């Protein structure tokens, strides 16, 4: 079974769960005066769950035939060649983004951004530290200035124990 049909299967399951939540868990929370309404908060989700299941099954069962199956070109991304790609780098970068999200508040904007930019280039194979570090520092500093001072959106610059 091809990847797109696996996804359709996951989608149908997802719609079933969503439909279960909409059909069986929402309505008893409704205050009595709202039950006289022709439309409930769960009405639209119910319709969506049914529609989603139908469309998902159409894809899953392959009812709609593609007109012309064109061979994917070499430069196009293709999951069947996933092992040839730099999967490790991609996963490391995703991990790095998660770390950044978790560190942004406690470590402050300047430190976490500088580390993120340097580490990101490092993961991609850059080893010119004399370029990487200054670029990251300047970028972090200027963006912080732009966002905080010019646009007026608060970004904590330093780690939490420094009191800002």
């Amino acid at each position, binding site marked *: 079974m091809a990847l797109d049909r696996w996804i359709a299967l996951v989608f149908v399951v997802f719609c079933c769960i969503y439909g279960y939540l909409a059909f069986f868990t929402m309505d008893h929370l409704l205050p009595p005066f709202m039950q006289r309404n022709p439309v409930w908060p769960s009405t639209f989700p119910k319709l969506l769950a049914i529609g989603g299941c139908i469309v998902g099954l159409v894809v899953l069962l392959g009812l709609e035939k593609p007109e012309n199956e064109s061979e994917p070109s070499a430069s196009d*991304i293709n999951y069947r060649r996933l092992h040839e790609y730099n999967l490790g780098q991609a996963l490391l970068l995703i991990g790095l983004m998660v770390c950044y999200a978790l560190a942004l508040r406690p470590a402050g904007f300047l430190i976490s951004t500088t580390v993120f930019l340097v580490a990101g280039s490092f993961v991609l194979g850059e080893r010119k530290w004399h370029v990487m570090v200054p670029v990251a520092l300047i970028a972090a500093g200027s963006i912080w200035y732009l966002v905080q001072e010019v646009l007026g959106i608060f970004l904590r610059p330093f780690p939490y124990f420094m009191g800002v």
Partner: protein
Amino acid sequence: MLEGIMIGLSAAFSIQNLLMVIAGCLIGTFIGMLPGLGPMSIIAIMIPVAITLGDPTAALILLAGVYYGAIFGGSTSSILLNAPGVAGTVATSFDGYPMALKGEAGKALTIAAVASFAGGTIGAILLMIFAPMLSTVALLFHSAEYFALMVVGLSAIAAFAGTGQVAKALMMTILGLILATVGEGALFNMPRFTLGLMDLQSGISFITLAMAMFALPEAMFLVLNPARGATGKSSEISNLRFTKDEAKIMAPVIGRQSVQGFFIGVLPGAGATIASFLGYAVERNIAKGEAQAEFGKGSVRGLAAPESANNAACTGSFVPLLTLGIPGSGTTAILLGALIALNVTPGPRLMTDTPEIFWAVIISMFIGNLVLLILNLPLIPYIAKILAVPRNFLIPFILFFTLMGAYIGQNNATELLILVGLGVVATILRFADYPLAPLLIGFILGTMLEDNFARSMQLYRGLDFILERPMTMGLLVLAAVLVLLPSYRARRARRRAEGVADGD
């Protein structure tokens, strides 16, 4: 009307207001270029500045300039990075990015600039003529028609997603609609599908989703397959010109889409986004043979159509705001808030009570479009330098701007985790050839769709509104036809092919 234009000219050509137009366009372009900061967030950020000006005319001119600039800047990042910061420029990336990959980024940016200019100018002329007239048309639409109209929009987007892909596109649309039901609905004030998490109470932010759907998978693909980005980078952005033949191809496209985009923009709820997608789809259907096959691979038509349509629609979305006081889009809603803060109430009386505001804004639209063309065409080679940055530096920066865009909008670190999670899902979906634009459109329209559906259900005590309002019925039938037609056509073609084989 002539008198009004004169008043507008004298107001718009004051030194202060000219400076406002230029400042607004510049700020808008530069911030709009950063993926993730769309016109909505920029205008929201600029509101304190505009209010401190104290003069409603100058404030509105500044904010309108920012709006255009942001749409223009958004198309730049769509073309160069395939990271549209604005939903209205998603369609631009369909053909703009392939062009940049082919090494024609300069040409793509020029075409986008010219198409935007033409779209905006034609839109402003139409606004001058139709602003008083069109308000009556928009008044005929009730929530039932809005609901049906949005269903038509969504089915059209799914139907034009590609041959043999309608079911997949519909699936993505429904997924977008489902994601839009997360959080508190406007009509019910009841948290839904939040899984008990406080962070989901206000729903998923549009910017986060847009980032996750477009910017992150593209960055991931650049990492996974270095050969992918190699072609576009090497070329110098020297060739800004397009040929005479291309101009000939573009001209009718721009003309059609400016007019169509304007009228779509007038309808509340159907703003620049639908205009650009519909414009793209219509041009693709009109195009014949080779020209049609070129769509999605760097077609001149495919780039000019959404660019002129979205700028014309931006102008068009001012019609309901200025004449009815009803904002047609999120952006004009923010503008409405700013105007009310300045003690001006937009509505039918705006034109008679304060004609200088009404006309100065319209005149400043012409000036703003001119400023964008004059400022941005010479700046294009410098803007395009982004592509010359080495990949090892560019990718961390794209990822960083993506994260920042999501963070600034919400000031919430959980949003970043949602972004990464959705980004991984989007990358997998891209691998399986699912179109992601319908998902985003479904998400944007989801709330409005449900609101209008619920309102018409309440007004008609049930589903009767479909039968009692012929316009609603007609629009829904149109939507069904749009969805079913491609598969019917394909089936008929297959039958015919089989029949021929039997005959032999």
